[in-house]
């Protein structure tokens, strides 16, 4: 658009300059043409029109005075024509120069305006970017503030948790101190239960072996005999030893098994428990036919 306006402006200037130059040239040409026209003879004005006799032939020569006047007039006209031509040329050049200068000035101004507009646009962009940066900075500051608040909250929560944990640990430690006795009691009870369980198993096994001893299967009988003998070992509880002795005595009374009788004799001499020794002694007396005392 600006280029079009500039072009129109230039065209207008050139057209104006061309017109001025054409007019000047035409005027000069017109003056130049007039000098060759034969001057019309002066006629005295009359009130009424009287027909003038028309010359039938052109004069072949002019009087010298006219010749001189014409020469002077020609010289004056020539001078005037050249002067006017020069003036018109100068005017044309000046106008052209003015036109070009004006166009140049316009172009320079236009370019400066465009640059100014660009600069203004850049300034607007910078302002916009600054505004955005300011917004970002504000948002960042708000985020930082929120983060600080959150951090403070987390720190407070962590402190509260640590305090609670500490209090809980203290509470647990106190509970453990209190429960220490309970745990020991429970351990003792468990140990006692296991001992009772072992004792119960042995008691059951003694009954099984007693049945096997009195049974018909020789291998089971053999196994029961060996097991009951093993259970009279001094490492076993006294009650187990006594019950094993009683089971063996019953079998010895029925079978008169020398192996068992010899084993009972050893018990009467070596067992640490009087109850067990007495049980073995009674068995031996019954086996030998001596009534137990």
């Amino acid at each position, binding site marked *: 658009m600006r280029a079009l306006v500039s072009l129109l402006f230039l065209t207008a200037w050139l057209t104006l300059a061309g017109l001025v130059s054409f007019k000047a040239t035409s005027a000069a040409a017109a003056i130049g043409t007039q000098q060759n026209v034969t001057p019309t003879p002066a006629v005295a004005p009359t009130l009424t029109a009287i027909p003038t006799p028309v010359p039938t032939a052109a004069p072949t020569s002019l009087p010298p005075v006219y010749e001189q006047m014409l020469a002077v007039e020609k010289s004056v006209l020539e001078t005037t024509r050249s002067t006017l031509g020069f003036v018109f040329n100068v005017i044309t050049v000046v106008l052209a120069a003015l036109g070009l200068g004006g166009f140049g000035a316009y172009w320079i101004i236009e370019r400066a305006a465009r640059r100014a507009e660009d600069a203004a646009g850049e300034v607007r962009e910078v302002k916009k970017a600054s505004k955005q940066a300011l917004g970002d900075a504000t948002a960042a500051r708000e985020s930082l503030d929120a983060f600080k608040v959150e951090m403070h909250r987390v720190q407070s929560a962590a402190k509260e948790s640590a305090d609670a944990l500490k209090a809980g640990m203290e509470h647990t430690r106190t509970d453990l101190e209190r429960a220490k006795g309970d745990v020991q009691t429970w351990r003792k009870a468990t140990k006692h239960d296991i001992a009772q369980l072992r004792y119960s198993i042995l008691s059951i*096994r003694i009954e099984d072996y007693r049945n096997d001893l009195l049974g018909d299967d020789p291998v089971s009988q053999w*196994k029961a005999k060996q097991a009951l003998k093993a*259970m009279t*070992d001094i490492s076993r509880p006294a009650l187990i030893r006594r019950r094993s002795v009683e089971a063996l005595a019953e079998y010895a009374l029925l079978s008169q098994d020398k192996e068992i009788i010899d084993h009972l004799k050893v018990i009467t001499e070596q067992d640490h428990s009087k109850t067990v020794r007495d049980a073995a002694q009674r068995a031996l007396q019954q086996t030998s036919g001596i009534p137990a005392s």
Partner: protein
Amino acid sequence: MVTRILLIDDEPYYLEGHINALQEAGYEVEIAETAEEAIGRLKRPPAPTLLIIDLIMPYSRGEIGPDNGNTTGLHLLEVIRRDLKLAIPVIMLTIVARRDRHAQIEDTERKYGMMAVIRVKPYLPSELLEDVRSLLDSESTSGGGEP
């Protein structure tokens, strides 16, 4: 890898309890009710990972064996180490609590660079499982082989 345990005992009461406890713990259990059956099984691959042997048992069906069967487990242990040349870890079960009998077992094992665990009856299933795990762990760290 399958942990295969050969259980050698003649008493149904203990056999039943042992099989249940060991199988529930994830072990594969085979049984032999006499020393003779155990030897026959040990001659065939695959070799068991661990042996549980009762000390007092008949040598074979119908034959009590030497020492009135009181040391059949010990005799079997000697055959396993000396003749079969197997370095399989052993748990020896016994109702005999006498130290001299335990010393016999320990001496036999020491002769072949082994160390059997002796568990006196009666015991809880958890105690037997503890012995099994302990032996398998020490075996995996030291590595098995021929005695």
